[in-house]
């Protein structure tokens, strides 16, 4: 049979909801250069019983360090929701501030529930054990299509409602960490679709992206699915590699933002009759810049946390590469704006800063600092060019530049890994030996895997999200009425004015 379908389930250990049984002597075996082997532990059981007992505690502590790291970094990424909320609201108008904040707020709550219902299961159901956390073997079900002898993992089948064998301390930690990444994707389109999106239809979108769209692509890259297996199956480097999610998180979000903005149409008054754009300045630049700084802070959790291991000392390199790329992106955006548009427009510089962060998200663990700076510099320039291309050539209204920050630079980040990865990290990634290496360091096939991943993401996400928005528009209209858009969405959509004291009403003057 040339094509077969199976739902693979491999043996897992008992779930450990209390966490008491996770982390022991087995987690000491082979973890450092001079760590004991499994044989060593067995052989010394009789002669050095204390050592064996200590190995058990050490193993537990190793797992504990890694879990604490993962959770703390997850908390930092959660805080990025506040960053997105502040940045988007600051860069849009005051009359819609309540609604913009409302979307960024509810996407967290709804995204989490949707992800808990089935998103996490679809993404991570078949990821198998998470070695750095000493467990999670309850995630042992993946739906696989076998074509001509090659396995193509499509989606996970364990972990719905985090119930049954997935009620486990380690799996819960993995859920938290993965959920906040998913929510970063979910909140990106609220930027490109701000100031004219009905709250009702936004709610439907939030469930859809957290339950199905994000998890599917994330399974293919991170859940052991077919994009990750491109190395094992077809010799394309280590398969598609995306350390912290330039594609899984940002490209997905940016492409969804593009589809949504296209279906929604531009804000009233955005384009003059001849198609040239009108400026619609953000109402609170201090709020926006604070939001951007919060995003940069949270990004330390985003990138460095993706080792899922505090004991993996590459985290220092990851964190520094992250910050260098952000600085480079800000500087190149500033120079671009100064040269071509007379002034260092702080909103574009802030976008460039974020673009650098997005672009370094995939390669951060695999490149040196010079590469990180180059990647950031290019990201800032790509960002500026893209903002003007989207607005002036495509005539798509993107109030905050979400498509350019996340979509364009998400793709750049994934491809940059395929160019700049220098082989000093990633041995064994996706089941392929040796460090991850890009084109400039001798491996052309890695770039091929990256390109495959980018094209897959764009085609899949754009098709699904465009069709989704078009269909949704027929059932729950996406766009507010003209009167509501002119007056401001706050009262009509979320029942509270963001700034009631700037309107004359009897309740304000009591």
């Amino acid at each position, binding site marked *: 049979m040339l094509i077969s379908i199976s739902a693979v389930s491999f043996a897992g250990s008992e779930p450990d909801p209390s966490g008491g049984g996770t982390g022991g002597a087995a987690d000491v075996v082979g973890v450092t250069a001079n760590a004991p082997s499994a044989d060593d532990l067995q052989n010394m059981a009789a002669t050095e019983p204390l050592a064996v007992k200590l190995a058990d505690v050490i193993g537990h502590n190793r797992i504990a360090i890694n879990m604490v790291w993962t959770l703390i970094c997850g908390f930092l990424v959660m805080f990025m929701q506040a960053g997105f909320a502040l940045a988007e609201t600051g860069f849009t108008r005051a009359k819609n501030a309540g609604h913009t904040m409302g979307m960024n707020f509810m996407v967290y709550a709804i995204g989490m529930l949707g992800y808990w219902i089935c998103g996490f299961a679809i993404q991570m159901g078949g990821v198998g054990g998470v070695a750095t956390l000493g467990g999670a073997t309850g995630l042992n079900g993946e739906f696989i299509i076998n074509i001509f002898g090659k396995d193509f993992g499509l989606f996970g089948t364990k972990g719905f409602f985090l119930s049954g064998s997935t009620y486990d301390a380690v799996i819960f930690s993995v859920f938290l960490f993965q959920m906040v990444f998913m929510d970063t994707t979910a909140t990106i389109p609220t930027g490109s679709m701000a100031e004219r999106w009905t709250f009702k239809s936004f709610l439907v979108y939030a469930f859809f992206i957290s339950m199905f769209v994000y998890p599917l692509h994330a399974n293919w890259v991170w859940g052991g699915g077919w994009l990750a297996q491109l190395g094992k199956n077809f010799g394309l480097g280590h398969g598609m590699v995306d350390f912290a999610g330039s594609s899984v998180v940002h490209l997905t979000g940016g492409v969804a933002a593009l589809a949504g903005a296209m279906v929604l149409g531009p804000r009233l008054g955005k384009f003059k009759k001849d198609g040239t754009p009108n*400026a619609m300045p953000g109402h609170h630049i201090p709020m926006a810049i604070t939001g951007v700084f919060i995003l940069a802070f949270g990004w330390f959790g985003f990138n460095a946390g993706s080792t899922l291991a505090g004991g993996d000392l590459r985290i220092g390199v990851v964190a520094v590469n992250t910050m260098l790329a952000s600085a480079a992106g800000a500087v190149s955006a500033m120079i671009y704006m100064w040269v071509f548009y007379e002034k260092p*427009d702080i909103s574009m510089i802030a976008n460039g800063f974020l673009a650098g962060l997005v672009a370094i998200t995939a390669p951060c663990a695999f490149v040196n600092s010079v590469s990180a700076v180059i990647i950031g510099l290019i990201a800032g320039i790509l960002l500026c060019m893209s903002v003007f291309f989207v*607005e002036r050539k495509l005539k798509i209204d993107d109030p905050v530049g979400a498509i350019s920050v996340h979509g364009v630079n998400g793709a750049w980040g994934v491809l940059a890994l395929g160019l700049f990865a220098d082989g000093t990290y990633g041995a064994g990634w996706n089941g392929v030996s040796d460090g991850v290496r890009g084109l400039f360091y001798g491996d052309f096939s890695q770039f091929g895997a990256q390109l495959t991943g980018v094209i897959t993401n764009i085609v899949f996400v754009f098709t699904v999200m465009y069709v989704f928005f078009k269909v949704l528009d027929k059932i729950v209209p996406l766009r507010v009425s003209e009167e509501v858009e002119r007056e401001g969405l706050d009262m009509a959509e979320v029942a509270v004015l963001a700034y009631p004291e700037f309107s004359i009403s009897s309740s304000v003057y009591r």
Partner: protein
Amino acid sequence: MTMYMLIHSGGNMKKIEVIIKPFKLDEVKDALNKIGVTGMSVSEVKGFGRQKGHKEIYRGAEYMVDFVPKIKIDMVVSCDMADPVISTILEHASTGKIGDGKIFVSSVEKAIRIRTGESGKEAV
């Protein structure tokens, strides 16, 4: 209770509306207090005369800021105070550059103090 009597007192009070550059407000207010003006209302307005607006650029798109922020002072004074007020304002609000502002004087028919019901010159 004080009876409010309709006294025809038109013609002996003037309303003076002044539009000045915002940074001149403190100086003008202090100078007016010194010559005996005891009350005024101040509002933030935007406007243009010959000063015109200027061009700004946001994310590469140019836009005109036509209206420039100004401060408007409204005060009602007795007739004999009008000229001292005008010369005080001219002395303190002027910078010699375009956009210094304008003074408008009009007659007031009635002025009444709400707390006491007084009217006419006693009310200002």
